[in-house]
């Protein structure tokens, strides 16, 4: 293309300017292409320049000594240019890779720290309590013993929850993850989850609003149960007891809209955009939690092609809104006689 342009401008500018145009082209190519094609371009452009522009034109012979030196210099400059640009790019690439590696190492370290803390704390408790019961049994009162057993029980439940989260996360990231949709009764889904969470929610005021006419939705019951479970657990971790939790389910057009609101203290505005990030934990978060719960929620909802939004409510508290477009069935009341 540049050769063509050169042919057009040749009469106006002379063949030496064409040489510079070709040089610029080779330099630009060096910024994007690999070393071999760039050197090839340098060689080819030298040949073209010689063949098409250096008098006598349309031959590979070069008329004057001056032009011969020019041609040689052209080829050297083009080649050196190509090699140098290529080298600079290599160095840049290396620096970038090193930076990224440092960044991911840092990320990995934070992750490992938080994980090992979350996993080791309950394990330490279990080992410690069991050791105590085993070797110190004679000196422990019955009350001490039952307290140690209770500690083991709490720690193992906590450990199990963390492992569950990690397994879910790796399930999501493995790619071998399928959403098995079937007709779901939202009423059943919500109350089943609340029943499972009864011990955690006993000091909260939970209100559920579901219309009698709410249709059935095509969802993966197990995944949605996990979504609600994680969201509610999250609320109990971030809001004080006596908080009111309001769960609402509606059909809006062809979507299920689930909203979960609390009247706690809400989320810090500058952290709202990050709460669904993997391993993200609020700055003032209490102990417990790997920062995986909400990212699993988001992952499971996105696997349903849905969305989740979080915002703070005007006076106090926060509101999670889940919207999942899905098939709907209105056969709520079936007459079979």
């Amino acid at each position, binding site marked *: 293309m540049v050769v063509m342009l050169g042919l057009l401008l040749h009469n106006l500018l002379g063949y030496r300017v064409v040489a510079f145009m070709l040089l610029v082209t080779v330099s630009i190519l060096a910024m994007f292409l690999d070393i071999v094609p760039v050197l090839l371009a340098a060689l080819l452009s030298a040949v073209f320049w010689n063949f098409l522009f250096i008098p006598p034109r349309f031959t590979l012979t070069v008329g004057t000594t001056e032009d011969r030196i020019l041609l040689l210099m052209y080829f050297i400059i083009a080649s050196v240019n190509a090699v140098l640009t290529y080298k600079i790019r290599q160095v840049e690439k290396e620096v970038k890779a090193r930076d990224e590696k440092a960044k991911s190492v840092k990320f990995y370290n934070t992750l490992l720290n938080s994980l090992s803390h979350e996993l080791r704390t309950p394990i330490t408790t279990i080992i410690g309590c069991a050791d105590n019961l085993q070797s110190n049994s004679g000196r422990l009162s019955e009350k001490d013993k039952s307290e140690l057993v209770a500690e083991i029980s709490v720690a193992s439940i906590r450990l199990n929850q963390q492992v569950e989260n990690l397994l879910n996360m790796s399930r999501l990231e493995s790619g071998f993850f399928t959403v098995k949709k*079937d007709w779901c009764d939202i009423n059943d889904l919500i109350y089943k989850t609340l029943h499972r969470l009864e011990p955690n929610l006993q000091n909260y005021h939970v209100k559920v609003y579901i219309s009698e006419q709410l249709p059935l939705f095509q969802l993966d019951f197990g995944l949605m149960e996990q979504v609600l479970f994680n969201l509610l657990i999250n609320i109990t971790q971030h809001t004080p007891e006596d908080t009111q939790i309001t769960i609402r389910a509606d059909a809006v057009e062809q979507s299920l809209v689930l909203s979960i609101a609390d009247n706690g203290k809400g989320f810090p505005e500058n952290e709202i955009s990050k709460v669904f990030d993997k391993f993200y934990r609020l700055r003032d978060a209490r102990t417990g939690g790997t920062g995986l719960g909400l990212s699993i929620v988001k992952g499971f909802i996105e696997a349903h092609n849905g969305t989740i939004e979080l915002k703070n409510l005007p006076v106090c508290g926060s509101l999670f809104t889940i919207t999942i477009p899905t098939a709907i069935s209105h056969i709520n009341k079936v007459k079979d006689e």
Partner: protein
Amino acid sequence: MSNSLSILIIDDEAQIRKLLAITLQSNGYSIQEAASGKEALTCVAMHPPDLILLDLGLPDQSGHDVLKHLREWFTNPVIIVSVQNGEEDIVKALDAGANDYLIKPFRTGELLARIRSALRKAASVANMPVADYTDLFIDFANRIVKKDNVTVKLTATEYSLLSLFAQNEGKVLTHQYLLQHVWGPTHQNESQYLRVFVAQLRKKIETDPNRPAHIITESGVGYRFIGHGNDHS
């Protein structure tokens, strides 16, 4: 020992076998143990137990295969105990004749309740004339259902569903199984009817339909009918 009920524990993890053995023996059951599928099948052939606890992940063959072989002749209850919590796996085992399932880690109380319920079912006669639970009464001969001594009007489908549940008390019935036995083989994919009828039935027979004591949802798998409302926990 001779008159206590025997339970065979099939699990390749010695630790789990030990835990189960201690738990079950202290509750009056006698115990047999097997660490592989082959060992299990030999053991069952020689001393058929009253109940089997079967782990799905065995070293020599899959628990599903063991279950298949067992069900060719063994009719006593089999409870699946597994770490795999994929619903498909559970549904597959239930459809192959398992009576119930437990996911590791499980609570001891839950384990014992499931065992009691499976054994009770095995002991009861298949064609019982009536079922009398504390708040619920079913007269199968006359198709009468009473909730807190008040006769409840059920539709034909609601009644079929309830009587199928009651005849399989304590057992998890998969969605497929229920659809096939209440609606017939041509309705296997119409689970929306099942959801609606379960919801309607709960409104009629449960004290609080939102906290069902009789018809329990097993997420992604099916439903379990509990006769005595307080037996579940």
